[in-house]
Structure formats: C-alpha cells, structure tokens
C-alpha cells in the first residue's frame, strides 16, 4: 500500500504541474477529473485495507461529487460562458511551470514540515502548493475554481495518507463545503460574465457601460 501511495502522490503532483502549464480549459478539466477519481479510488482501497468505513464513504463521496459532478458542472459552465481557452496568466506559463518545479523541489529537498508531516504525505503538500499556484496565477475565473479544487484534492490525499486522521463527519462536511463553494463560485462566474461580458478577472475594473 505504501508504494501505491507514493506512486499515486507523484502522479497527482505531475498531473497538477501539467495543468499549470495548460491553457485549454477542457483538457484541464479532464486532467482534474482523472486526478480526483484516482484519489477517490485510492481512498476506497485504503479504507478497505484498514477496515475504515469512514474512509470508504468519504472516498465514494469524493469520487461521485468531486470527480464526476464537479467537472461536468464546470464544463457546462465553460460551455455557457463560452470560454474555451485561458486568456493568460499573471506570469508566463513556462515560468509558472518552473516555479512549480522549484516549489516542489524545495519542499522535497528541505522538508520544512519535518516535525508534523510523515514523508509519505509530502506529495500531498506538493499538490496543495501546486493547487495554490494554479489558483493564484490564472486570470480566468474558471481556472481559479479548478485550482481551488486541485488544492482540495491535495488536502484530501493528505488525510488518506494518514490513517485515522479525520472522522467521517468532518470529511463529509468538508466535501459539502467544497461542493457549495464550487456552486457559488460557478454562479458568481455566471454573474461576472453577465455584467462584464467576460470572466477575465483583470477586466473587472471596467464594467460594461
């Protein structure tokens, strides 16, 4: 199980970094969906191995809600808003990729959370970092929602790697919050697109006359 853990963790990291460099929203959503389904399946497997019903249920919830429902909703959103490509990022995307690599490298080499984080959970911290970079760097509102969801994937993966870490109630509450957050962000995106004709956040300063 341990090797599977670290294999999957690195895969999450790599797919996260890939998403940072991409500009096509649909590809980004597909990658995100695959990533989330992988985390959900891992959670279910770990739950079965450790006989933890909570983890199995949380994994199933993540699989269905975050892995299937959220990407479908977001792709519907991109379709309605009519934004298929990222307008750009605050840094050039090659630079962003290198920033990601540097952040992950620094994390792995210096391991600043030595006291509180077991080495197996390091990729999870890496995914959280990459999710943050994804969320902060992009100018399109939908990309920022995806970044937020990737960040949350990292969080959930972190709880999976540390058994008995969270009770079911908290797990499901977090899941509900995430879904609510995504819905609200989606509705906001609709509103922004309605009143500004675009969801590029740098253009929010100039409302439609």
């Amino acid at each position: 199980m341990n090797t599977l853990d670290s294999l999957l963790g690195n895969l999450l990291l790599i797919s996260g970094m890939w998403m940072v460099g991409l500009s096509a929203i649909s590809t980004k959503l597909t990658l995100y969906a695959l990533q989330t389904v992988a985390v959900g399946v891992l959670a279910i497997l770990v739950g079965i191995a450790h006989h933890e019903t909570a983890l199995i249920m949380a994994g199933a919830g993540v699989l269905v809600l975050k892995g299937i429902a959220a990407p479908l909703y977001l792709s519907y959103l991109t379709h309605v808003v009519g934004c298929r490509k990222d307008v750009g990022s605050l840094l050039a995307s090659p630079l962003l990729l290198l920033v990601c690599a540097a952040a992950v490298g620094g994390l792995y080499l210096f391991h600043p959370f030595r006291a509180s984080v077991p080495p197996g959970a390091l990729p999870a911290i890496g995914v959280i970092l990459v999710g943050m970079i994804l969320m902060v760097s992009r100018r399109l509102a939908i990309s920022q929602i995806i970044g937020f969801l990737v960040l949350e994937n990292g969080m959930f993966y972190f709880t999976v790697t540390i058994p008995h870490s969270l009770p079911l109630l908290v797990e499901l509450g977090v899941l509900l919050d995430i879904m609510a957050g995504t819905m609200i962000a989606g509705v906001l995106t609709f509103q922004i697109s309605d009143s500004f004709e675009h969801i590029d956040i740098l253009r929010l300063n100039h409302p439609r006359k």
Partner: protein
Amino acid sequence: MSIYLVRMAIVTCEIVLLPLLLIGILRATRSRLQKRKGPRIFQPFYDFMRLTRKSAVVSEETGPLFRGAPAASLAALLILALVTPWSGLAAPISGDLVLFVFLLAAARMASGLAALDTGTAFGGLGASRESALSILVEPTLVLALAAGAIYEGNLTLNALCQPANGRGGSAYVMPLAAAAIWLAAAVETSRMPVEDPTTHLELTMIHEAQMLEYSGPRLALVEYQSALKLTVLYGLISQFILNEMAIKSSIARVSGTFGLTIAMVVAAAVMDVFLVRLHWRKLPDLLTFGLAFSLVACLLAALRG
C-alpha cells in the same frame, strides 16, 4: 572479444538500414492515415540511391563551409550513434551524457553554419530558429539523461541499457524522462507540433529551410542524417521505457527496442496527420513541459538514490 564484434556488427547494420526504413514506415503510415496510397516502405532507399547518382547543383556564392558541412555533421551524428545505446545493446564506444548533447549541438552547428553560408534569406531564418530552439531543448535533454544517470548511479550512457537496479517501478523517473526526451525529439527531428515536415511554405520551415540549397549526393546525406537522428533519439527513449519494465536480457532488449521504435514512428505519423503546427511563439510554452518534467524526474531520482 567476439561478443564485442557481434555487437558492433549488429549496431553497424542498424545504423545503415534502420534510419531509412523508419522514415519509409513513417511516410507509408502517414499516407495510409490520409487515405492515400503513398510510397512503398523501401522508397527512401531508392531515393537515397537516386540522389547519390545525380550531380549536385551548388551555388557560386557558397564556400567550402557549405560543401563540407554535410560530411562534418554526418561524422558527429555517426559518433553519436556509436556512443549511444539506442539499439538496446551496449554502445561500442563508451560516452557520457555531456558528450551526447555536445555531438547533437556539433551537428546542428555544422548545418546552421552551412545554411548561413548560402546567404539566402530562408537559410538564415532556419538557422536562427533552429539555434533558438536548441537553447530550449538542451537543458531538457541534459536533465532527462541526468535523471536516468542518477537513477542508475552511473554517468555513462551505456548504463541506460544495462539497468543496474532491476527494480522496475521507478516512481516515474523513467516515464518522465522518456516523455521529456520525446518532446525534445520532436524539436530535434522537426516533427509535428514543432514543424510541419511536409510543408512547402518556406516561411514556416525550421530544419527544412536549412536543407533547401542542397541537391544530389549532399541532399542524400542530409536526409539520411535527419533519419539517423530520429532513430537514435527514439531508440534512446525506448531504453528508458525498457528500464521501467526492468527488461535485462539483451535479445529481449533489442527486439523490444525495435518494436518500441516502430511504435513511436507510427505515433509520430499519427501526430503528423492529426496535430496542427504550433505558432512559433507558443513553442517555449510546450517545451517548458519537457524541462519541468525532466527537473521533477531528476528530483525523484535523487530522492530515491
């Protein structure tokens, strides 16, 4: 000693036959995918023979650089083919990853200088673009090969075809390095997302633009060199994939390399047909993926070792 001779013989046969055969397979696959009948698989051999029999037309403006460059870059690439274990067998001459990148750069410099020597606008344009791209590609190649070297604990290229640790499952070091080299190979062999190899529009050419002035035997040499470069790079990628699968016996490695190389050539043909050429300014975005992936591969290899 006799084993060394057998190895040398196999590698020599492959150097002579495989590149043009792979190009033939690539063109035939591409034609079939486009619902055309297309040339025979062995057509590149006939083309090569035909070109060597023709007389060359050389511009009066060119100097000895233009005439000597194909031979010089062919020499560099032949040494490259002899130091790299791209056939699945240990290379006859031992070399390390810096030599690999140096030889690629030497061949590129010869063809670039020759293109500048012709004094045509397109030649200069191609040379400038190719050298700009090489700046983006070289770190990727060095880091990807370094990831393999760190993982196997040995700097020589031959270590890549004799996996010291048959652990397989390299935690993505090998797949990531292979993906990075694949991206670099798309630039080095001027394949589709980077350059349209079938284009007749000089303004969009990169590598092809440097070959415009060549004719006759020199053109045959230059075309053979592109094919050789493709063979060596795809063979090298195959070594990374075979290491991931922890295949050790040399017969399995040679046949595996052969199969994987042909699979990659078919994949390249599919990409030629279905992908569009990226805008020149978008290329750094694509190539940084290779750099980032090889960086992460190095990191994972270092953590594992």
